[in-house]
């Protein structure tokens, strides 16, 4: 028995050792499957463990990477789990949170509320509300808390799951957004530009205060209305085509006219862009509107000051131009006077008293002709000057012969050009252009002076200024080219900008080209530039040809007078020198009465004296020729109709208006005697 007992013991020991080894293997995870004691089939161990592990891992990752703070509070109110985010939010380490009572993180006074919340969870209530916690540093942590009760397999309440979203950073972001919006709103409202947003059907979505003010409305009144209603009827076509261009992505500014509530026009410059929605569909337009009424006024003023500057620049040149012929006139007249007194007093040695008549013809005729030629040159210079000195309000457009005008401009700029270049003129036959002579003259002058200033002084033989005039379709093209250093490409684009200048301070105003550009554009023409560095620059003006109907037949300068008509002429001028010479010349053919003022003429005529012609100065002190005309029109209309006005330049608006009447005859000063006689003859014959 002892043997069997030994064997039994040995068996038990072996089985125990095997069981122990099996448990060890189980614990060290070396077992795959266990044979179920009832079903006698293997149950995979690893599968279950692995799946559990994976599932746990998945949840752990979610919990650890969650943007929410996650905690579990047990039934006793102790935190039994906290994720990393929660620790971050609370400002503690996880180990410091887990095991601590929840109340540790509740700010003073909030304990009762927290306890009631846990109690509701115990009752099975899930909820969501804003809750404030206290961080380790004592600061407030605003959260959005969601709670849900946790129950075990038997349905027993074991704790509460809490998920916290940080509202502090939410609020900061909200606040930042609100601030940034407020900032934009401030900018939008404070800007001096009008801002408008239109939808895809040009209804107003938004206007800022400035635009509403520009148009005389409250912003609220404009919203929802068709913007076309705020556009001047004359500009609505422009508005629609600008809108169509925006839709295609166009951003170029448009000059247009809006309509103020009171019906007046508001000149504006609008920069705009299309708005596209998230899917790239056209959703409307945004416009930045600038009131340019003031700018336009300013520009007009600048144009005048530029003209004054041009004249100032040229004054020295003009003085020089006049001085030469003037010196010739004085010297020749002095010579003639000396010679004549020599004849009379016999003080000169050479001319014998025996031959005065032939000597006069032979010797004095030369100096007299020279003096007259010199005077004639001065007349041209003065006429050129008059072209440039028209009143700034003079917007009258008339057929202009650009070739004659260019010649005038060349003479004016002669002093600037002479030392720097020789001028090559290439004029083709061109019809007149429809323009304002004074302003186009200003442009020509500007281009010529610019061309000259592009060239170094002192090498006139090497450099050229080429002036070409030709016809291209219905445009007359005027080109002014120089052989200067050219304009770098980076500068060419800005050359027509106001105040842009490459000249040293004091030499140029930086306005010349900007204003020239404006003048030419205003007249329906174009001013462009082409430049090659090292070769030179060409400015090109194109101006529309005058429509054929408007071209007046040029009046013949002189008429062949077959038969001289004798007349009775009244001369009225406040300049005694002019009065004397006119009397001297006209007395040869006519009966002449001369007076030095309009009032004298008036009293003469009031006494019933009548004349075939009245030559009257336009501008006189006390009473002007215009006033005399008005007076006569009332008292002696027949005599009023016989007035011819002598004008040295219509410098006032009233004078311009007066002479614009085609029934008013005028003779421009200075005049030559041949023309004066012809004009008088023409009038006398017409009235005979």
């Amino acid at each position: 028995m002892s043997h069997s007992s030994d064997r039994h013991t040995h068996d038990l020991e072996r089985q125990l050792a095997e069981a122990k080894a099996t448990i060890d293997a189980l614990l060290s995870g070396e077992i795959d499957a266990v044979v179920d004691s009832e079903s006698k089939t293997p149950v995979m161990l690893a599968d279950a463990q692995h799946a559990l592990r994976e599932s746990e891992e998945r949840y752990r990752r979610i919990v650890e990477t969650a943007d929410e703070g996650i905690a579990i509070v047990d039934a006793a109110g102790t935190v039994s789990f906290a994720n990393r985010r929660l620790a971050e939010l609370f400002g503690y380490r996880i180990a410091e949170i887990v095991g601590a009572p929840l109340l540790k993180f509740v700010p003073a006074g909030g304990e009762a509320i927290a306890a009631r919340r846990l109690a509701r969870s115990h009752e099975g209530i899930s909820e969501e509300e804003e809750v404030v916690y206290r961080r380790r540093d004592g600061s407030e942590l605003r959260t959005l808390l969601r709670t849900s009760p946790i129950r075990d397999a038997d349905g027993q309440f074991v704790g509460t799951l809490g998920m916290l979203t940080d509202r502090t950073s939410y609020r900061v972001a909200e606040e930042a957004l609100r601030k940034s919006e407020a900032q934009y709103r401030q900018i939008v409202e404070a800007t001096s530009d009008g801002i408008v947003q239109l939808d895809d059907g040009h209804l107003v979505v938004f206007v800022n205060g400035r635009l509403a003010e520009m148009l005389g409305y409250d912003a609220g009144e404009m919203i929802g209305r068709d913007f076309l209603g705020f556009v001047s009827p004359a500009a609505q076509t422009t508005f629609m085509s600008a809108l169509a261009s925006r839709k295609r992505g166009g951003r170029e500014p448009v000059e247009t006219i809006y309509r103020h509530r009171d019906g007046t026009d508001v000149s504006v410059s609008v920069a705009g862009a299309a708005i596209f929605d998230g899917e790239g569909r056209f959703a409307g337009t945004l416009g930045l509107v600038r009131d340019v009424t003031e700018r336009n006024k300013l520009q007009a003023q600048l144009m005048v000051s530029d003209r004054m500057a041009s004249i100032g620049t040229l004054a020295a040149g003009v003085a020089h131009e006049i001085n030469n012929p003037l010196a010739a006139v004085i010297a020749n007249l002095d010579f003639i006077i000396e010679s004549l007194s020599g004849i009379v007093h016999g003080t000169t040695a050479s001319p014998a008293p025996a031959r005065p008549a032939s000597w006069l013809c032979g010797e004095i005729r030369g100096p007299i002709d020279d003096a007259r030629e010199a005077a004639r040159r001065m007349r041209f210079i003065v006429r050129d000057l008059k072209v440039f000195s028209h009143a700034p309000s003079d917007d009258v457009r008339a057929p202009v012969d650009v070739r004659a005008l260019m010649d005038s401009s060349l003479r004016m700029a002669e002093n600037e050009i002479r030392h720097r270049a020789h001028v090559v003129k290439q004029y083709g036959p061109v019809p007149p252009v429809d323009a304002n002579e004074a302003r186009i003259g200003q442009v020509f002058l500007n281009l010529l002076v610019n061309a000259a200033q592009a060239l170094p002084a002192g090498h006139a033989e090497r450099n050229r200024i080429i002036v070409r005039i030709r016809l291209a379709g219905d445009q007359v093209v005027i080109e002014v080219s120089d052989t200067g250093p050219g304009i770098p490409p980076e500068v060419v684009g800005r050359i027509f900008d106001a105040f842009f200048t490459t000249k040293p301070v004091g030499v140029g105003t930086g306005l010349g080209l900007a204003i020239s550009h404006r003048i030419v554009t205003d007249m329906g023409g174009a001013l462009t530039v082409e430049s090659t560095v090292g070769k030179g620059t060409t400015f090109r003006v194109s101006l529309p040809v005058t429509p054929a109907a408007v071209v007046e037949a040029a009046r013949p300068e002189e008429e062949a007078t077959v038969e001289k008509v004798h007349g009775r002429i009244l001369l009225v001028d406040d300049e005694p020198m002019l009065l004397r010479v006119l009397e001297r010349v006209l007395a040869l053919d006519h009966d002449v009465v001369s007076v030095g003022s309009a009032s004298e003429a008036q009293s003469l005529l009031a006494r019933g004296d009548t004349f075939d012609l009245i030559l009257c100065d336009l501008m006189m002190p006390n009473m002007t020729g215009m006033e005399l005309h008005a007076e006569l029109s009332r008292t002696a209309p027949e005599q009023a109709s016989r007035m011819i006005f002598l004008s040295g330049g219509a410098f006032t608006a009233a004078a311009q208006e007066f002479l614009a009447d085609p029934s008013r005859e005028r003779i421009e000063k200075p005049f030559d005697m041949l023309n004066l006689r012809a004009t008088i003859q023409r009038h006398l014959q017409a009235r005979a």
Partner: protein
Amino acid sequence: MRLRLYIAGNAPNSLHAIANLRAICETHFPASHELEIVDLLAHPQRGLVDGIIVTPTLLKVHPLPVQRMVGSLGDTKQVLLTLAGT
């Protein structure tokens, strides 16, 4: 020497046990062993005879006495001692 290894399909410990056992046999008993591998998932009733309760389990069927060992058989020294019957 006749050996019988009970496994459970492709479970990791079973695969380890097969690999470990083959390596030991080829190293120490290259010409004198006979190895039978029994997949309990495919033949659950086969384990009843030998009283198998977990896999992997190695049985030395011959020569007697029968010896058994559980686990992935990673400890070569322990496997050799078991097979030697000590």
